[in-house]
C-alpha cells in the first residue's frame, strides 16, 4: 500500500535559524517548578529560562503538562480548586508568587490567547479596548487609538475598520482569533501566552496568525503551546519538549528538530509516538 500521508519527520521540517536579540536571557525563569491538581502531580521539576523578546514553543503529547505550565505563567490555574505548587517562577527577576504582587497586575503584564477564540458578546471595538476599560481608561481618543494600533498589529484592521461597532460574534473563526490577539495586546503586556492558538483554524488563518507571531516578537516575549511540530519549527526560536509532566529537553528550535539530544524527543518529533 503506497504511503499517502507521511508522518512529520525531522527531515521534512524547515527550521528557521534562531534570531539573537538584545534582552535578558532569563526574562522568565522557571526553577524546580512542580504543580499539583489536588493529589495529581501535573508538573515535576521544571527548570527553564525564557529570553526576552523571543518565541518559545512548548510541545509534547496531550496531558504532558505544557498547557498547565503556560497557564501558570499568568496564574490562570489559581481559578482551579485545590491546586498547589513548589519551586518558583520569576518574571524579570520578580516572583509571580510574591505576596506583594497582585494577580491582576501580573495578568495585565502577561496577556493570553486561548485555544478556542473567546470574544465577548460585545462590539469589536469594546472587545479590543476591554483591557483598557478595566484599568479605568475613559478617554475616547485614547481608546480609539489603542483599538486601531492593536487591530493593525493583529493584522485585522483592514478587515474590520468599517464595522467596529458590529458584534464580534459575527466574525469568522480566524478573525475572531486575531481579535482575541488584538485584545490581549491592547494594554501592551510584556509577555504573550498562546495556548494552541491555531488548533481550530484552517491553514490560511493559521498562516496569518503565524506571520503575526513573527511581527509581534519584536515587542513581546511569546510563549506558545502547540500540537503542530511544523508550527513550532516555523515560529519559535526555542522549543521545550515535555512528557508526562517532565521537561525532557529544552534548547534552540534548530537543535531540537535537527539534532535532539534525547531519544524521546527524537521519537516524538519524528512521529514515532505521541
Amino acid at each position: 500500500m503506497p504511503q499517502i500521508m507521511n508522518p512529520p519527520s525531522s527531515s521534512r521540517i524547515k527550521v528557521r535559524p534562531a534570531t539573537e536579540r538584545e534582552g535578558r536571557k532569563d526574562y522568565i525563569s522557571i526553577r524546580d517548578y512542580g504543580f499539583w491538581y489536588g493529589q495529581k502531580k501535573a508538573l515535576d521539576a521544571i527548570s527553564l529560562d525564557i529570553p526576552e523578546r523571543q518565541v518559545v514553543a512548548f510541545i509534547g503529547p496531550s496531558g504532558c503538562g505544557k498547557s498547565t505550565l503556560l497557564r501558570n505563567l499568568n496564574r490562570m490555574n489559581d481559578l482551579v480548586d485545590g491546586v498547589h505548587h513548589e519551586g518558583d517562577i520569576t518574571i524579570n527577576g520578580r516572583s509571580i508568587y510574591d505576596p506583594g504582587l497582585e494577580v491582576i497586575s501580573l495578568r495585565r503584564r502577561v496577556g493570553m490567547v486561548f485555544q478556542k477564540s473567546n470574544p465577548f458578546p460585545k462590539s469589536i471595538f469594546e472587545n479590543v479596548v476591554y483591557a483598557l476599560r478595566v484599568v479605568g481608561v475613559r478617554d475616547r481618543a485614547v481608546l480609539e487609538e489603542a483599538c486601531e494600533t492593536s487591530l493593525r498589529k493583529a493584522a485585522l484592521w483592514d478587515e474590520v475598520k468599517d464595522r467596529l461597532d458590529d458584534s464580534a460574534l459575527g466574525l469568522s473563526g480566524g478573525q475572531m482569533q486575531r481579535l482575541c490577539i488584538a485584545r490581549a495586546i491592547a494594554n501592551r503586556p510584556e509577555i504573550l501566552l498562546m495556548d494552541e492558538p491555531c488548533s481550530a483554524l484552517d491553514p490560511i488563518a493559521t498562516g496569518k496568525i503565524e506571520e503575526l507571531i513573527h511581527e509581534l516578537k519584536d515587542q513581546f516575549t511569546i510563549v506558545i503551546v502547540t500540537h503542530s511540530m511544523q508550527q513550532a519549527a516555523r515560529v519559535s526560536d526555542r522549543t521545550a519538549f515535555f512528557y508526562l509532566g517532565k521537561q525532557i529537553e529544552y534548547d534552540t528550535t534548530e537543535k531540537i528538530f535537527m539534532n535532539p539530544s534525547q531519544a524521546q524527543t527524537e521519537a516524538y518529533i519524528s512521529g514515532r509516538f505521541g
Partner: protein
Amino acid sequence: MASSTDSSTPRGEAFVWFTGLGLIIGLGMVIGLLSLVIVNGITVFWAPQVPVAQVDDGRTLIGQLAQRRVRAGSPADKPRYELQYQVGLRELNGNSYLWVDEAKIKSESFPADVLGLERVENGPAFVRPQSLRKSDGKVIAATDAGFEDAFQAEVAAAAVVREKLIEITRHRIGDVNGEMDKARVALRRAEDLKLADEVEARRRQIAGLEERFATLQAEAKKVVEGGAVASLISKDASNREVVVPLTQVIRAWFPNRLDTWGRVKLFFSRLGEFVFDEPREANTEGGLMPAIFGTLVMTVFMSLLVTPFGVITAIYLREYAQQGAVLRIVRISVNNLAGVPSIVFGVFGLGFFVYVLGGSIDQLFFADQLKYNNNTPVFGTGGLLWCSLTLALMTLPVVIVATEEALAAVPRGMREASLATGASKWQTIRDILLPASAPGILTGVILAMARGAGEVAPLMLVGVVKLAPTLPFDGSAPFLHMDRKFMHLGFHVYDLGFQSPDSDAARPMVFATTLLLIVLVVCLNIGAIWIRNRLRARFKGASF
C-alpha cells in the same frame, strides 16, 4: 414523527402512548380551564334577548336568563329543569335572581319595549317604560316616535351631571377632608406644645377648610337640583309603577330591539367600563381599574425588589462563597424556601415587615402622627410596600436559583478571557457574566412575576383590601404612596366569590375578573419575554 423512520421505536410501544397520554391530559386541563374562564368571562358583557314570561301561578316576570339546571329530586330518565332569571329591581323584588320551574312557564314572549337599565344602586332593572319626564318638565309617552332618542339624550345628560357630582363629592371634598385631617393633627400638636401662634394659624386653616367644604357641598346640591329632574316612569312585570331618576341610570338598552351591531357596541361599552372604571355595589358591578392598577404596581415593585436581592445573593453564592458543606446547606435552604406555603410568608410579613419594620418607621418618622392622631399607624399597617416586600421574599428562591444557573452556564472561556486581560473578579462579573446571564436571570424574574401576580393568601395579611378609597398613585405628593392599602385582582376574585352579599350577581364577575387576571399575568410575561428575547438576540452565536 420518528415512528416511520426510527426503527428503534417498535410499532405500538406502550410507553409512547402512555407518555403521550400525560401530555394530552395536561393540555386538556389547560385548554379546559382557559375556555371555561374565557366563555364565562366574556359572556358576562353580552346582552341577550330578555323574555317576558307568564308563570302558571299567575305571576309574570321580565328577566334575563342566567342559568338552567336539573331540579333536585327529578327522575333521571325524565329530568325536570328549572331556570334562573335575573329580574333585577332588587328594591322591589328583594332579590334580583329568581328560580322558576321550567314546566310552570306557560308562555314566553319578547316584546320590543322591554328596557334594561344598569343603575348606580340596587343593581339592574328590567321594566316596560311608560313615559319620560324630561329635565325641562315635558312628558313624552313611550309610544311617541321620539321617545327613544329623547330618553338616551337624557341618560347621557344625566351621566354628565353624575360625573360632575362624583368629581365634587369624591375627589374635591376628599381632598379637603385629607387636608382637614392633617390640619387637625397639627392643631392638636400645637395645642399640646403650647405654640400659641401655630394654634391660631391652624385654627384659621381649619376654618378656611370648613368654609371650602360648605361651598363644595352647596355646589353639589346645586348640581343635583339643577340637572337631575329627568326621570323615567315605567311598569315592572307585575304592573307596579317604577320611577327611576335618570342620574341613577348608567346604561339603558332595549334588549329585544337591538341589532347585532348594537349588541357589539353594548358589549364593548360594558367591557370598557369593566377595565377602566371603579367598582360599584360591593364590587359586584362596575369596573376593576383600582384592582388592575394595584396588581400591576405591586407586581412591578415586587420584581424591582426581588431582582437585585436575588441576583446579588446568587452572585455571592456562585462566585465568591467557598464551595463546601456550609454552602450546600445554604443552597438547600434557599431551595426549600420556595416550597414554604405562601401564607407563612404572609404571617412573617405581618409580624416582621408590618409590625417591626413599619412600627419602627412610624416611631422614628411619624411620631407626631401617632401621638396626635389616636395612634393611627402610617407604615405600621398593611400597605403596598409590605405586600411587595413579602412577595419579593417569597419569590426570592426562584430568582436565586435561576441566576445561579445562568451564571454557571456562562462559558468558561469568556470568564477566563476577561480575567486574563487583567480584569478583577468584580469587573468580570459586572461586565461579562451579568450581561451574558441576563436572559437566564430574566427567565427567573418572569417565573417570580407569574407566581407573585397570582398570589393572594399572604397579601390578605399585609395590605390588600376589598375596597381601597384611593389609588396608591395620585396627584398629591409624594405621588407614589407605598404606605397605602390597595386592591388586587386575585383577592377580588376571592372577595366576589365568597364574601359577596349577592352571590348570584357576583358569579359572572368572578369569571370576568379571573379572565382579567389571566390576561394581566400573560401581558406581564409577554413583556418580560420580549425583553429577554431582545437580550438573547444580542448574544446569539456566542458559543465556546
